[in-house]
């Protein structure tokens, strides 16, 4: 049997590695580097009802071990995604997870209903936590009741399982996760970016035109691991983990924390070949660690503790 295979609601993945939303466009650019069919899945860029230009530039800034972005959900809009991007992606043997965003609940519902019917869309990912969209975005992701309500409404109209993407910018991530699980979500994806900022010492102004942006990359990995560790013990729906993944070891760390699959974001910018490289390296790492199926690894860090005396997590 394929030892990298993972079964998730709506997703039979040949391996658990997928590019994270917003870091891979709609796949066209990376298709020049490798055959996208090698990927476990693809999380496409957030789609909104209308086309959006997004924020003014500069939109990215580097930070120690990470980067800030304030793209502002630039995307070609629902129609173009349905008529151009998704059909183009059909040439690859890879399930699509459609990341959707909106300024109102109605917008989410409308986009979800339409996009979930596309033949290669196997799941939705609700981006309720984009820190770079002022209207709505941040509130959906930080108030459990609002997130739950949105989840319920989208579940009603979606033709495929719904994953909700959690914001790390909250006091109690477990409360958010539980509310969303109860509202019927099929899975969680986490984490989105942390709100951060950099100021240019020469000009005295924020580097990003938007002021603040979302922090991603290796710098945030320990926060992602902690949150997945906590949430995975509190809910019974699966988690697709992300936040700073760069290597096959990182993937294992996310599985051990409680993830059932892993998305790679910022690392694609550092190395466009990072996803296939990780996929190729995983079997040898599993061998080294004496692991048969990668799916066995989910939650191992807390599962072994119930039996081990020396563990004090």
């Amino acid at each position, binding site marked *: 049997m394929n030892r990298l295979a993972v079964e998730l609601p709506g997703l039979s993945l040949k391996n658990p590695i997928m590019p994270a939303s*917003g*870091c*891979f*466009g709609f796949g*066209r*650019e*990376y298709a*020049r*580097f490798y055959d996208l069919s090698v990927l476990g899945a693809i999380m496409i*860029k957030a789609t909104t009802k209308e*086309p*959006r*230009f*997004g924020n003014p*530039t*500069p*939109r*990215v*800034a*580097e*930070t*120690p*071990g*990470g*980067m800030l*972005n304030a*793209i502002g959900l*630039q995307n070609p*809009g629902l129609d173009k995604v349905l008529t151009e991007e998704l059909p183009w992606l059909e040439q690859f043997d890879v399930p699509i997870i459609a990341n959707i965003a909106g300024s109102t609940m109605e917008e989410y519902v409308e986009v979800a209903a339409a996009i979930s019917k596309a033949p290669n869309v196997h799941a939705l990912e609700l981006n309720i936590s984009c820190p770079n969209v002022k209207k709505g975005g941040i509130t959906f992701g930080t108030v459990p009741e609002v997130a739950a309500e949105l989840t319920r409404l989208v579940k009603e109209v979606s033709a495929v399982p719904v994953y909700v993407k959690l914001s790390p910018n909250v006091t109690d991530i477990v409360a958010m996760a539980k509310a969303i699980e109860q509202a019927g979500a099929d899975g969680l994806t986490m984490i989105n970016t942390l709100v951060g900022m950099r100021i240019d010492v020469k000009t005295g102004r924020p580097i990003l035109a938007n002021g603040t942006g979302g922090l991603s*990359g*290796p*710098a945030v990995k320990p926060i992602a691991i902690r949150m997945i560790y906590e949430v995975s013990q509190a809910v019974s729906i699966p988690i697709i983990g992300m936040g700073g993944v*760069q290597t096959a070891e990182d993937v294992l760390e996310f599985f051990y924390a409680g993830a059932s699959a892993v998305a790679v974001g*910022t690392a*694609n*910018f*550092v*190395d*466009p*070949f990072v996803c296939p490289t990780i996929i190729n390296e995983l079997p040898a790492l599993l061998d080294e660690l004496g692991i048969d199926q990668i799916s066995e690894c989910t939650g191992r860090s807390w599962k072994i503790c119930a039996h081990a005396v020396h563990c004090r997590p």
Partner: protein
Amino acid sequence: MIGREQMTVASQRLIAERTYELTLAGRLVQEMKQPGQFVHVKVAASADPLLRRPLSLCQIDHEQGQCTIIYRQEGKGTALLAQKQPGDTVDVLGPLGHGFPLEAAPAGGRALLVGGGIGVPPLYELAKQLANRGVNVVSVLGFQTKAAVFYEEKFAAFGETYIATDDGSHGAAGRVTDVIEARALEFDVLYACGPKPMLKALDERFRGRPVYLSLEERMGCGVGACFACVCHVPGSETAYKKVCSDGPVFRAGEVVL
């Protein structure tokens, strides 16, 4: 084809104030064609600095299998790059973007190359390729001060070359546009790379003429995937071009500066 390679440092030397000329060897050179294209360089394997740095190709030498870039030491990344010694490797992704259209310059015609500061390097390969095609090349290169000037004689080898410095310490005092005006320089096509105010001045002055501008923008991916480097297209709220993959060279008027 865009590729990624650990290229080998053939040489590196300081050619002006905080300005380095770095020559790299590798197979990737065979993919490099167009002046104005850039490479995306990861200066260290560690997570700090994390992102690649976009740097223009300054010379492409297919026979030797070498390319040259010229960069100014600004922040963390270029400081690390400046420490590379011959034999060290550099992680290069490229060649990226669309460069200067050579075919816009008629053979026997006149091309005006206008460079500002660290925007000068890509014009060198352009001058070379234009001259090879029988185009008359005139170069106007602006720098802040004498100590920052580089490649003056190298450009002069391909045609008339004028230097302007902000402080008048070398060449004409003032800006490149002052030189163009004072000398009443004519052209069939103008190619420029440099700071945005310079590009804007050229755009305004030569509106409607065949002018090609190379833009700079902070980048994430460098390959068109992250939407970090977009600019507006005139007359539309949502239409855009990406500097990294649609540019960095655009025809004046194609995008909003």
